[in-house]
Protein backbone atom coordinates (compact mmCIF):
# COMPACT_ATOMS: atom_id res chain seq x y z
CA UNK A 1 0.00 0.00 0.00
CA UNK A 2 1.29 3.49 -0.75
CA UNK A 3 3.19 5.30 1.96
CA UNK A 4 1.16 8.29 3.14
CA UNK A 5 2.96 9.70 6.18
CA UNK A 6 0.17 12.05 7.30
CA UNK A 7 -2.97 10.03 6.53
CA UNK A 8 -4.95 8.78 9.54
CA UNK A 9 -4.81 5.01 9.77
CA UNK A 10 -6.04 1.93 11.59
CA UNK A 11 -3.16 0.30 13.43
CA UNK A 12 -3.01 -3.42 14.29
CA UNK A 13 -1.47 -4.98 17.35
CA UNK A 14 1.14 -7.70 17.04
CA UNK A 15 -1.60 -10.24 17.76
CA UNK A 16 -3.84 -8.76 15.07
CA UNK A 17 -0.99 -8.93 12.55
CA UNK A 18 -0.56 -12.63 13.28
CA UNK A 19 -4.32 -13.10 12.87
CA UNK A 20 -4.23 -11.26 9.54
CA UNK A 21 -1.53 -13.64 8.30
CA UNK A 22 -3.70 -16.60 9.34
CA UNK A 23 -6.74 -15.01 7.67
CA UNK A 24 -4.83 -14.75 4.39
CA UNK A 25 -3.76 -18.41 4.54
CA UNK A 26 -7.31 -19.55 5.38
CA UNK A 27 -8.77 -17.46 2.54
CA UNK A 28 -6.32 -19.18 0.21
CA UNK A 29 -7.55 -22.61 1.34
CA UNK A 30 -11.25 -21.73 1.11
CA UNK A 31 -10.78 -20.20 -2.31
CA UNK A 32 -9.69 -23.67 -3.41
CA UNK A 33 -12.68 -25.27 -1.65
CA UNK A 34 -10.58 -26.76 1.14
CA UNK A 35 -11.13 -26.62 4.88
CA UNK A 36 -8.46 -24.36 6.44
CA UNK A 37 -8.24 -26.85 9.30
CA UNK A 38 -7.24 -29.90 7.29
CA UNK A 39 -6.48 -28.63 3.78
CA UNK A 40 -7.93 -31.92 2.47
CA UNK A 41 -11.63 -31.90 3.51
CA UNK A 42 -14.21 -29.59 1.93
CA UNK A 43 -15.01 -26.22 3.54
CA UNK A 44 -17.50 -26.54 6.41
CA UNK A 45 -19.85 -23.88 7.60
CA UNK A 46 -17.99 -23.81 10.92
CA UNK A 47 -14.69 -23.14 9.10
CA UNK A 48 -16.21 -20.27 7.21
CA UNK A 49 -17.98 -18.73 10.21
CA UNK A 50 -14.82 -18.91 12.32
CA UNK A 51 -12.79 -17.29 9.56
CA UNK A 52 -15.35 -14.52 9.01
CA UNK A 53 -15.68 -13.84 12.73
CA UNK A 54 -11.90 -13.68 13.20
CA UNK A 55 -11.80 -10.79 10.72
CA UNK A 56 -14.86 -8.99 12.01
CA UNK A 57 -13.47 -9.38 15.52
CA UNK A 58 -10.28 -7.46 14.77
CA UNK A 59 -10.15 -4.23 16.76
CA UNK A 60 -7.47 -1.97 15.33
CA UNK A 61 -6.76 1.41 16.91
CA UNK A 62 -7.51 4.57 14.95
CA UNK A 63 -4.51 6.87 14.89
CA UNK A 64 -4.81 10.31 13.31
CA UNK A 65 -1.58 11.79 14.63
CA UNK A 66 1.05 11.72 11.91
CA UNK A 67 3.54 11.78 10.46
CA UNK A 68 3.95 8.01 10.58
CA UNK A 69 7.13 6.07 9.84
CA UNK A 70 7.28 4.05 6.65
CA UNK A 71 6.62 0.47 7.83
CA UNK A 72 5.91 -1.11 4.48
Amino acid sequence: MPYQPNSPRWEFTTGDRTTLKTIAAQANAMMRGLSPASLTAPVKRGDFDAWKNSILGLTPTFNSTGPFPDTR
Partner: protein
Amino acid sequence: MEQPPFHIRVRQEMAAERRSRRSTIEDEPAEGEYFQEMDYPTRDSPDIQVVSAATVAFGNDTATVTVTQSTPFPGGSIQWGTATGVYTSGLQQHKKTVLTTSLNATNQQVLSYTLQFKLTGMQQAAAQAYFGQIRYDDGTLSSEFTWTQPGLNASANDQVFFYDKVLTDFAAIMNWAEKASQAGWMLPDQWTNFRNLVINTAWYNYVKWNDGR
Protein backbone atom coordinates in the same frame (compact mmCIF):
# COMPACT_ATOMS: atom_id res chain seq x y z
CA MET B 1 -78.09 8.02 -3.23
CA GLU B 2 -74.92 7.32 -5.14
CA GLN B 3 -71.78 7.25 -3.02
CA PRO B 4 -69.08 9.81 -3.90
CA PRO B 5 -65.72 8.43 -5.11
CA PHE B 6 -63.49 6.96 -2.43
CA HIS B 7 -60.94 9.80 -2.35
CA ILE B 8 -63.77 12.30 -1.86
CA ARG B 9 -65.16 10.20 0.99
CA VAL B 10 -61.72 10.11 2.62
CA ARG B 11 -61.52 13.90 2.48
CA GLN B 12 -65.04 14.20 3.83
CA GLU B 13 -64.27 11.87 6.71
CA MET B 14 -61.08 13.75 7.55
CA ALA B 15 -62.92 17.07 7.39
CA ALA B 16 -65.63 15.66 9.66
CA GLU B 17 -62.97 14.50 12.10
CA ARG B 18 -61.41 17.97 12.12
CA ARG B 19 -64.81 19.59 12.66
CA SER B 20 -65.50 17.16 15.46
CA ARG B 21 -62.19 17.94 17.11
CA ARG B 22 -62.74 21.69 16.76
CA SER B 23 -66.20 21.30 18.23
CA THR B 24 -64.79 19.50 21.24
CA ILE B 25 -62.22 22.21 21.78
CA GLU B 26 -64.79 24.99 21.54
CA ASP B 27 -67.41 23.28 23.69
CA GLU B 28 -65.12 22.17 26.49
CA PRO B 29 -62.16 24.50 26.72
CA ALA B 30 -59.68 23.27 29.26
CA GLU B 31 -58.32 26.20 31.15
CA GLY B 32 -54.68 26.86 30.57
CA GLU B 33 -54.38 23.99 28.11
CA TYR B 34 -52.96 24.56 24.67
CA PHE B 35 -54.71 22.92 21.74
CA GLN B 36 -53.10 22.59 18.38
CA GLU B 37 -55.20 21.91 15.31
CA MET B 38 -53.36 19.54 13.02
CA ASP B 39 -53.85 16.92 10.39
CA TYR B 40 -50.73 14.96 11.18
CA PRO B 41 -48.91 14.27 14.42
CA THR B 42 -45.87 16.38 15.16
CA ARG B 43 -43.16 16.40 17.78
CA ASP B 44 -45.23 18.99 19.68
CA SER B 45 -48.03 16.61 20.52
CA PRO B 46 -47.43 15.32 24.04
CA ASP B 47 -51.16 14.75 24.54
CA ILE B 48 -51.17 11.79 22.16
CA GLN B 49 -51.50 8.46 23.91
CA VAL B 50 -50.19 5.42 22.11
CA VAL B 51 -52.33 2.54 23.16
CA SER B 52 -52.08 -0.10 20.49
CA ALA B 53 -49.50 -2.87 20.72
CA ALA B 54 -46.95 -3.62 18.05
CA THR B 55 -47.39 -6.76 15.99
CA VAL B 56 -44.55 -8.64 14.33
CA ALA B 57 -44.74 -10.70 11.16
CA PHE B 58 -41.63 -12.59 10.15
CA GLY B 59 -40.35 -14.45 7.11
CA ASN B 60 -37.09 -16.31 6.76
CA ASP B 61 -34.73 -13.40 7.14
CA THR B 62 -37.01 -10.41 7.70
CA ALA B 63 -39.33 -9.20 10.42
CA THR B 64 -41.97 -6.51 9.96
CA VAL B 65 -43.06 -4.60 13.05
CA THR B 66 -46.36 -2.75 12.70
CA VAL B 67 -48.35 -0.44 14.96
CA THR B 68 -51.82 0.50 13.76
CA GLN B 69 -54.58 2.53 15.35
CA SER B 70 -57.52 4.66 14.29
CA THR B 71 -56.23 7.96 15.66
CA PRO B 72 -53.04 9.85 14.80
CA PHE B 73 -49.88 9.02 16.70
CA PRO B 74 -46.25 10.08 16.35
CA GLY B 75 -43.57 8.49 14.22
CA GLY B 76 -40.67 6.84 15.93
CA SER B 77 -37.57 4.67 15.89
CA ILE B 78 -37.19 1.00 16.62
CA GLN B 79 -34.60 -0.72 18.76
CA TRP B 80 -34.16 -4.43 19.32
CA GLY B 81 -31.87 -7.09 20.74
CA THR B 82 -31.69 -10.73 21.73
CA ALA B 83 -32.35 -10.25 25.45
CA THR B 84 -35.29 -8.62 27.16
CA GLY B 85 -34.62 -4.96 27.88
CA VAL B 86 -31.22 -5.03 26.14
CA TYR B 87 -31.51 -3.40 22.72
CA THR B 88 -28.15 -3.76 21.04
CA SER B 89 -29.47 -2.70 17.62
CA GLY B 90 -31.03 0.57 18.40
CA LEU B 91 -32.72 3.63 17.01
CA GLN B 92 -31.20 3.24 13.58
CA GLN B 93 -34.44 3.27 11.64
CA HIS B 94 -36.85 6.19 11.91
CA LYS B 95 -40.28 6.08 10.29
CA LYS B 96 -43.20 8.46 10.05
CA THR B 97 -46.75 7.39 10.66
CA VAL B 98 -48.74 7.05 7.43
CA LEU B 99 -52.47 7.16 6.79
CA THR B 100 -53.65 3.88 5.31
CA THR B 101 -56.95 2.34 4.29
CA SER B 102 -58.27 -1.19 4.54
CA LEU B 103 -61.56 -3.06 4.15
CA ASN B 104 -63.48 -4.12 7.22
CA ALA B 105 -65.70 -7.20 7.59
CA THR B 106 -68.58 -5.52 5.77
CA ASN B 107 -66.33 -4.40 2.91
CA GLN B 108 -66.24 -0.75 3.98
CA GLN B 109 -63.11 1.34 3.71
CA VAL B 110 -61.55 2.03 7.10
CA LEU B 111 -58.95 4.72 7.73
CA SER B 112 -56.13 3.96 10.08
CA TYR B 113 -52.67 5.25 11.00
CA THR B 114 -49.76 2.87 10.61
CA LEU B 115 -46.14 2.89 11.67
CA GLN B 116 -44.09 0.10 10.16
CA PHE B 117 -40.47 -1.03 10.38
CA LYS B 118 -38.87 -3.70 8.22
CA LEU B 119 -35.88 -5.46 9.72
CA THR B 120 -33.60 -7.61 7.59
CA GLY B 121 -30.73 -9.98 8.29
CA MET B 122 -32.58 -11.47 11.23
CA GLN B 123 -32.13 -15.17 10.52
CA GLN B 124 -29.49 -17.08 12.43
CA ALA B 125 -28.30 -20.67 12.22
CA ALA B 126 -30.70 -21.60 15.04
CA ALA B 127 -34.08 -20.09 15.96
CA GLN B 128 -33.53 -16.81 17.76
CA ALA B 129 -35.79 -14.87 20.13
CA TYR B 130 -35.78 -11.09 19.63
CA PHE B 131 -37.07 -8.34 21.88
CA GLY B 132 -37.92 -4.88 20.62
CA GLN B 133 -39.34 -1.53 21.55
CA ILE B 134 -40.41 1.61 19.73
CA ARG B 135 -39.37 5.05 20.91
CA TYR B 136 -41.97 7.51 19.69
CA ASP B 137 -41.12 11.06 18.68
CA ASP B 138 -43.07 12.44 21.64
CA GLY B 139 -40.63 10.69 23.98
CA THR B 140 -42.89 7.81 25.00
CA LEU B 141 -41.86 4.18 24.72
CA SER B 142 -43.97 1.28 23.52
CA SER B 143 -44.25 -1.81 25.64
CA GLU B 144 -41.71 -4.48 24.75
CA PHE B 145 -42.67 -6.91 22.01
CA THR B 146 -40.99 -10.20 21.24
CA TRP B 147 -40.89 -12.79 18.52
CA THR B 148 -38.90 -15.85 17.56
CA GLN B 149 -37.23 -15.81 14.17
CA PRO B 150 -37.03 -19.28 12.65
CA GLY B 151 -33.48 -20.60 12.17
CA LEU B 152 -31.75 -22.04 9.16
CA ASN B 153 -31.32 -25.44 10.76
CA ALA B 154 -27.70 -24.99 9.87
CA SER B 155 -24.91 -27.05 11.33
CA ALA B 156 -21.20 -26.29 11.64
CA ASN B 157 -20.63 -29.47 9.63
CA ASP B 158 -22.65 -28.34 6.59
CA GLN B 159 -20.50 -28.22 3.51
CA VAL B 160 -20.12 -24.77 1.98
CA PHE B 161 -19.87 -24.13 -1.75
CA PHE B 162 -18.90 -20.73 -3.11
CA TYR B 163 -20.00 -19.05 -6.29
CA ASP B 164 -17.18 -18.22 -8.69
CA LYS B 165 -17.70 -14.50 -8.18
CA VAL B 166 -16.68 -14.92 -4.53
CA LEU B 167 -13.29 -16.28 -5.54
CA THR B 168 -12.03 -12.86 -6.61
CA ASP B 169 -13.14 -11.50 -3.23
CA PHE B 170 -11.11 -14.19 -1.49
CA ALA B 171 -8.09 -13.26 -3.59
CA ALA B 172 -8.49 -9.58 -2.67
CA ILE B 173 -8.90 -10.44 1.01
CA MET B 174 -5.70 -12.51 0.91
CA ASN B 175 -3.88 -9.61 -0.69
CA TRP B 176 -5.08 -7.00 1.83
CA ALA B 177 -4.58 -9.28 4.84
CA GLU B 178 -0.99 -10.07 3.80
CA LYS B 179 -0.15 -6.41 3.28
CA ALA B 180 -1.78 -5.31 6.53
CA SER B 181 0.02 -8.08 8.38
CA GLN B 182 3.34 -6.84 7.07
CA ALA B 183 2.72 -3.09 7.42
CA GLY B 184 0.69 -3.18 10.64
CA TRP B 185 -1.88 -0.63 9.49
CA MET B 186 -4.55 0.15 6.90
CA LEU B 187 -5.91 3.44 5.63
CA PRO B 188 -9.55 4.08 6.66
CA ASP B 189 -10.94 3.36 3.17
CA GLN B 190 -8.88 0.20 2.91
CA TRP B 191 -10.12 -1.07 6.27
CA THR B 192 -13.75 -0.39 5.27
CA ASN B 193 -13.32 -2.08 1.90
CA PHE B 194 -11.56 -5.04 3.50
CA ARG B 195 -14.44 -5.66 5.90
CA ASN B 196 -16.99 -5.21 3.12
CA LEU B 197 -15.21 -7.85 1.07
CA VAL B 198 -15.50 -10.28 3.97
CA ILE B 199 -19.19 -9.52 4.38
CA ASN B 200 -19.64 -10.04 0.62
CA THR B 201 -18.30 -13.56 0.86
CA ALA B 202 -21.01 -14.33 3.40
CA TRP B 203 -23.75 -12.83 1.23
CA TYR B 204 -22.75 -14.52 -1.97
CA ASN B 205 -21.88 -17.95 -0.73
CA TYR B 206 -24.02 -20.95 -1.30
CA VAL B 207 -24.45 -23.33 1.57
CA LYS B 208 -25.79 -26.85 1.39
CA TRP B 209 -28.16 -26.76 4.34
CA ASN B 210 -29.16 -29.75 6.42
CA ASP B 211 -32.78 -29.50 5.32
CA GLY B 212 -31.83 -30.04 1.69
CA ARG B 213 -32.12 -26.49 0.39
